């Protein structure tokens, strides 16, 4: 199975582990991720106002490129996934947006949302299958209590993202089970970490992160996994050190369970 792959800027510096482990694991699962050449920042750092065209053009370019290559597009970072998927939806459903975006690009090859965008987790669930994934696990994480942290961007808006029920998601819990560990359910797993507010209202961001962290800790989790570099950073930096749980990327856990991580370190 071949997919086009959009890593995103953060995965090239702060969140290299997220990217590295994802590639190693995909390889072990027999999936080829072909990174799009010349991709640009998704624009996730800008406003998500629906009438803003310029900041979305990089997404449209990537989506169009994936269409040309003929493969579905896999994303990994929650923020990139959100922006790309929402932009793709707008290109397909919002004629006015599509017209204006296409006019900026090459109007002779219009794009109308033809590329299918899936998150790495959806690829694991729908292409590989969690049952098949469980069979490929060589180092099961038996006995580990892991808290899945979805954050706000991965699932919402539910109608566009169409990954899972935003109020009662299970995809990460099923993923954790497939790796042999025990998922820990806690109420704040799908609440915002406050990451976007960090610069203007640090106290608020700290409060939000602390709520998430405390909630997971009270549920007796050993660690938290996430797909979002911003959540990872925020949860770690904005909560008091005492009682802070380790926050790692879900792909790190995956690579560990598949036994590919050690191998990479040796090489």
């Amino acid at each position, binding site marked *: 199975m071949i997919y086009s792959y959009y890593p995103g800027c953060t995965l090239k510096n702060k969140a290299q582990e997220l990217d590295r482990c994802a590639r190693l694991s995909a390889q072990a699962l027999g999936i080829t991720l072909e990174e799009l050449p010349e991709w640009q920042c998704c624009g996730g750092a800008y406003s998500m106002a629906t009438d803003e065209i310029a900041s979305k053009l990089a997404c449209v370019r990537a989506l169009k490129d994936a269409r040309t290559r003929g493969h579905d597009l896999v994303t990994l970072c929650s923020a990139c996934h959100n922006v790309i998927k929402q932009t793709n939806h707008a290109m397909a459903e919002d004629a006015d947006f599509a017209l204006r975006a296409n006019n900026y690009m090459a109007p002779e090859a219009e794009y109308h949302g033809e590329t299918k965008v899936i998150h790495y987790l959806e690829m694991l669930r729908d292409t590989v299958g969690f049952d098949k994934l469980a069979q490929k696990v060589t180092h099961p994480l038996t006995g580990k209590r892991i808290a899945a942290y979805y954050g706000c961007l991965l699932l919402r808006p539910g109608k566009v993202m169409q990954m899972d*029920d935003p*109020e*009662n998601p299970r995809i990460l819990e099923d993923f954790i089970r497939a790796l042999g560990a025990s998922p820990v*359910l806690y*109420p*704040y797993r799908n*609440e915002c970490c406050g990451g976007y507010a960090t610069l203007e209202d640090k106290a608020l961001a700290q409060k939000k992160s602390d709520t998430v962290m405390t*909630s997971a800790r*009270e*549920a007796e989790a050993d660690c938290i996994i996430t797909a979002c570099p911003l959540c990872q950073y925020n949860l770690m930096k904005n909560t008091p050190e005492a009682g802070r749980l380790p926050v790692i990327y879900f792909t790190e856990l995956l690579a560990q369970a598949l036994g590919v991580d050690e191998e990479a370190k040796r090489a």
Partner: protein
Amino acid sequence: MQRIGVFVCWCGSNIAATVDVAAVSDTLKNEPGVVFSTNYQYMCSESGQNILKDAIRDYQLTGVVICSCSPRMHEATFRKAAAAAGLNPYMVEIANIREQCSWIHKDKAAGTEKAIILGRAAIAKVHLNAPLTAGESPVTKRALVIGGGIAGIQTALDIAEAGFEVDIVEKQPTIGGKMTQLDKTFPTLDCAACILTPKMVDCAQNENISIYAYSEVEEVKGFVGNFHVKIRKKARYVDTTKCTGCGLCTEKCPVKKVSNEFNLGLDNRRAVYIPFAQAVPKVATIDADHCNMLKSGKCGLCAKVCTAGAIDYKQKDEIIDREYGAIVVATGYQPIALDKYDEFAYSQSKDVVTSLEFERLTNAAGPTGGTLLRPSDGTHPHTLVFVQCVGSRCEDDGRGKSYCSKICCMYTAKHAMLVREKYPDTEVYVFYIDVRTPGKNFDEFYRRAVEEYGVHYIKGMVGKVAPRADGKLMVQACDLLANEQLHIEADMVILAAAIEPDPSARHLATMLTASMDTNDFFTEAHPKLRPVESPTAGIFLSGVCQGPKDIPETVSQASAAAAKAIGLLAKNKLTCNPCVAHSDEWMCNGCSACEKVCPYGAITYMDKEFRMPDRTTAIRRVASVNPAVCQGCGACTVACPSGAMDLDGFSNSQIMAEVDAICKMK
């Protein structure tokens, strides 16, 4: 050739202001077959009708065209007048020159021209009209009420009071419905059991009422006045004629952990049970899914302790055939499942309950004996948060219902008020989108909750309920008026779940060929003028099966449905509408297209012997219309591919003649 009279009505200035009525009557006088034409200020008045009657006699009219208002308004009036003058009433045609002409046009010349065209079309149709005679069918003087909640009970009592037999079919082991589970009722706060159980007893004691509890309607055949119904009486494994309702078996049964549906799973019952002390009929029922004896043949304890010898493990379902003249649907409602509303943590915490569960938690006959205790740990709750509109007025998220469930604002006010009254140490919050309290003494009731009992009403919705490790529920909400976020540490959260029709209603509607809306509420024949009748003749609607309503409204509607049913049962014969479909058996190819589109189930197929032109006989499958059931909608005549179906009074040739008359150049 018909001798046709044309009568153009002014309708005061309603028609005459935009249609030159004199020009219309003068022009139509020249149409073929018209021997008399006039206009008059009010044709429907007594003197107008006399003009019609006199003209029929004086000019020996064989057909009449009235250019006036919609036939819905006065067709019956003019038909009656014509009949009084000796003319077959179905020789009268109405040209609607008011609703479809004068009211919607401003230009008098154009209005006049259109009125003339509409008149011409009616004249063309009358040329092809034939006298029709309405048939008659007998009426079985017994009513069936489906559903034994407060709606069904009230309807049955009223019908029985009028002297007719009524059967109540209830799928639960007892009648009483949802109201038996309620604690107090708004706005007067009288206890639900005190006002309901006497009515349940009345039903049991009334000699005109037969109760088929633990039974379901299996099949409905027939038509208005003549329904044939099969009722499945489910096996209780208890002989109801012997059981005295002493309850000894329910104390001895060793299977103790069956979720008690009467208390909404808040406690357990035995495998043999009586739902509650005031059940009617008060007899035990064995739950076959949990009874050891029925599952494995090992136990039989209840049979041993039963002094009446009523336990019968070999009992089978029984099918009862009954005939009815009228059927009243009173299937009620259920709260929606909350599995799609996980932001409120209903499935995560026992202390998040629905309002109906809350009724049980405050009911003296409930699992806590009426003391409000947290289901999780049995402690006294101090902070309670009520959330309204959970699943109601949800336009587009695909989880809830678009409509307002109507009862939640009032029962939430009731709950909040009662909690504050009984436990003054509590803080009670109610989150709402709008508070809707139209109804006698309703708004006063709500204001009492706010002003006298100090309930905190907050406009805004709850976004999240997060159960904390120490058992508290963290409620995150917005206060829209203050424009701020609220975080409340609550002990209990009560969700006002939307209500939806009972799931059995859809299947029943199919059996009854009664129509439903997209929410599975039964539709009424007319939303304002015929609110308790289904469009299917002989089917009446009582209670929430037709739309959300509270107890006072349900009881009013139940009595209205009873009055309509009594009106039907009081008749010895029913006059049928003669404008019904019939099939030309030689043209019919037996394809079933008409049967599939018939909304009333009036069309059946039969194999009939035909003598063919070559003197052989052949068996052919042909459609046959039951004229007593057919409502004359004409759907079959359109669907029929061979043109065999035709509608008396609205035949294909008559409709085409009208179209030709309209399309013909002047």
